[in-house]
């Protein structure tokens, strides 16, 4: 398996180092856009029409919100499967509290964010203090919220005032306001990861929890914060859906499949599922790829069931291309010095399967946590 890459590895290594993860996603996105525009043109439509671009950007916004938070959680080597239910719950709380009165908007938004932050805190505490694997912990909290939703809501509920609905309906030129807000949150998230101490700690904890702890990082805090932020971005997605639908819906989140799709988007965006590497902008690229594929399929009037087939194939194919490209999975440790070449060239060259060894070890560490 590694013999193929081995022979090329010394030649391609310098180039690969410089290719940033999010750059590859950008290239993939451009590729998808080119293929998409050709396909759309083949049925006599214009891919770059204002209406189509607005559709794509609109399609990005909800999944984008969820995926931004999911990126943070996955960077910490956890997962959040409870997002669809947080989305539904947020849309319901918002719509119920607003009850058609514009004066209630601030209170409703605040309540939604607080509730989401509490759910996120619960997730984070279960993962860090009770040492429950993130997959199970958030699957469990998601089911608990689902039980609450199914018991207390029989259908859509509440009423969103027109002023709030405008957020989902208006746009600046072809760019919807909701997408602008989503991109604003993405900027904040990227700044958070790049500029704050907690952001750096997230990479450290996700990369190797034990090393992070031995380096003097309180390993619990970044994970809890990531879960809180993830639930809060999911709540933003719920607010946006409420503004679009005009009501709250108990099934809007699970129908969208935001749990698995957001994870897929994050991985598409070059973030390692094992944590420690990735970026918000890669995730946005992954979300954009989904949105473009969806829009092309809508324009070409693909059968809705076949869309899922295409989505599934696109996810696997894109991630396969991506992982084949990146065989060196570790974060470069000596980027600017000659030590990098000595270590990378001498030892990685001598030891084949560098990528898979690096892949295996985090898995072991993860298992020890569990």
């Amino acid at each position, binding site marked *: 398996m590694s013999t193929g890459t081995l022979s090329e590895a010394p030649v391609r290594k310098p180039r690969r180092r410089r290719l940033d993860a999010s750059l590859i996603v950008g290239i993939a996105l451009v590729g998808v856009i080119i293929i998409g525009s050709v396909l759309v043109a083949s049925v006599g439509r214009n891919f770059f029409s204002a209406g189509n671009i607005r559709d794509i950007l609109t399609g990005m916004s909800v999944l984008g919100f969820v995926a931004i938070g999911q990126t943070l959680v996955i960077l910490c080597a956890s997962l959040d499967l409870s997002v669809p239910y947080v989305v539904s719950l947020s849309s319901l709380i918002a719509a119920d509290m607003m009850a058609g009165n514009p004066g209630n908007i601030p209170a409703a938004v605040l309540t939604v964010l607080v509730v989401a932050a509490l759910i996120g805190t619960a997730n984070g505490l279960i993962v860090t203090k009770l040492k*429950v694997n993130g997959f*199970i912990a958030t*699957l469990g909290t998601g*089911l608990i919220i689902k039980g609450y939703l199914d018991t207390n809501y029989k259908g859509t509920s509440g009423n969103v005032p027109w002023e709030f609905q405008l957020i989902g309906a208006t746009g600046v030129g072809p760019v919807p306001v909701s997408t602008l807000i989503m991109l604003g949150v993405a900027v904040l998230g990227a700044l958070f990861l790049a500029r704050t101490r907690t952001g750096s700690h997230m990479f450290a904890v996700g990369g190797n929890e034990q090393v992070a702890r031995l380096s003097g990082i309180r390993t619990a805090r970044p994970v809890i914060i990531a879960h809180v932020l993830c639930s809060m971005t999911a709540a933003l997605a719920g607010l946006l859906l409420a503004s679009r639908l005009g009501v709250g819906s108990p099934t809007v989140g699970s129908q969208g499949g935001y749990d698995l799709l957001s*994870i*897929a988007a994050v991985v598409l965006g070059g973030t390692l599922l094992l944590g420690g590497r990735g970026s918000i902008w890669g995730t946005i690229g992954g979300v954009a790829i989904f949105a473009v594929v969806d829009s092309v399929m809508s324009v070409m009037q693909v059968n809705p*069931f076949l869309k899922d*087939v295409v989505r599934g194939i696109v996810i696997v194919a894109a991630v*396969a291309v991506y992982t084949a490209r990146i065989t060196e999975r570790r974060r470069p440790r000596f980027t600017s010095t000659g030590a990098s070449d000595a270590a990378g060239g001498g030892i990685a060259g001598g030891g084949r399967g560098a990528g898979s060894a690096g892949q295996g*070890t985090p898995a072991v560490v993860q298992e020890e946590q569990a």
Partner: protein
Amino acid sequence: MSAVTSDSQHLRHRLAGFGRTLISPRGAVFLLLIVLLIAITVLNPSFAEPSQFVRFVQRVAPVAIVAIGQYFVIVGGEFDLSMGSVVTAQVVIAGNLIGQDESKSIPVLLFMLAFGAFVGLVNGLIVSFLKVPSFIATLGMMLALLGATLYWTGGAATGNPADGFRQIGRGGIRDLPVIGVLPWSVVILVVLLVIAIWFARRPFGRSIIALGDNPTTARYSGARTWWVKTSTFVISSLSATVAGVLLVGYAGVHPSVGRGYEFTAITAVVLGGVVLGGGRGWVVAAAAGAFALEALFTLLNFAGVPSTYRDAVQGAIIILAVAYAATTIRARRRGRALETSPAPEAKEPDPSEDPARPAPIPSTLRADNETKGGS
């Protein structure tokens, strides 16, 4: 006289060991199952009647079989999210291809098994050779397979296989003493469980666990990792196929049959004390996890809890179960031993309790002492 005391001491020792096993994460699922079954019996004494109990086992059989399949994938360190879609696809295939023609049963059954093996093979090869994380690979398979199935049927329930075929999930050996009817699905479950136990003890089964525990050492020890990994996906897809065959008989043909089975199976496996990430767990406990989960639902039913709370209770239980297992293991690792006797540990030296990171190799200049493959 002294022999008697030593015998009784020995017995007491054994009993104490058994008790410790029951409260250890490995055995906790059996304790949970027993408590749940007793609680159900208290609420509804007729549940303890053999015929009722066999019916309960019949109802659990598909879930338990799927859990057995998922066990091998999880203990090998991966996930299989496509199982639910495989169940749905197989149910629809059976419904559409067999129709009312009983003579087609056998060929279609063989086709279904081949199709299941093929799906697992594709999953495994994607994970092994394209290096796609299994979560993503099987998620893609889940979407693609479900989409294709719904596209084929147009999203509606179509077809109904011949009664002869449905008997597999529905019928059984009749006119037995005590239990009355022994459903085929119970027989199949028992046979598969025995095969699974046997398989897990074979060298190949052990290499699956070794692979899940530490892929690097498994490779060094000469395991063909790609084949071991791929075979776990084939096993899980085949078990989903068998569950699909049972469900056709039991529940009929509908595109929603099998929905959510992957998460149910993972829940059951985790309840059984199997560690996500691989390397630790017992297949019987995984099957017992499926029984505990279904017993829990039955209990909630009898207790008059609204069915909408089922999910919430399921969520709370799995968090608590895993938290219990995790904190117990942590306590043991710190030396505050729950199991004070060294006997159980000596019996099963758990390799993953030691830091699984291989010892530094002196000649390696890497900053992080990670072993590299080959040379």
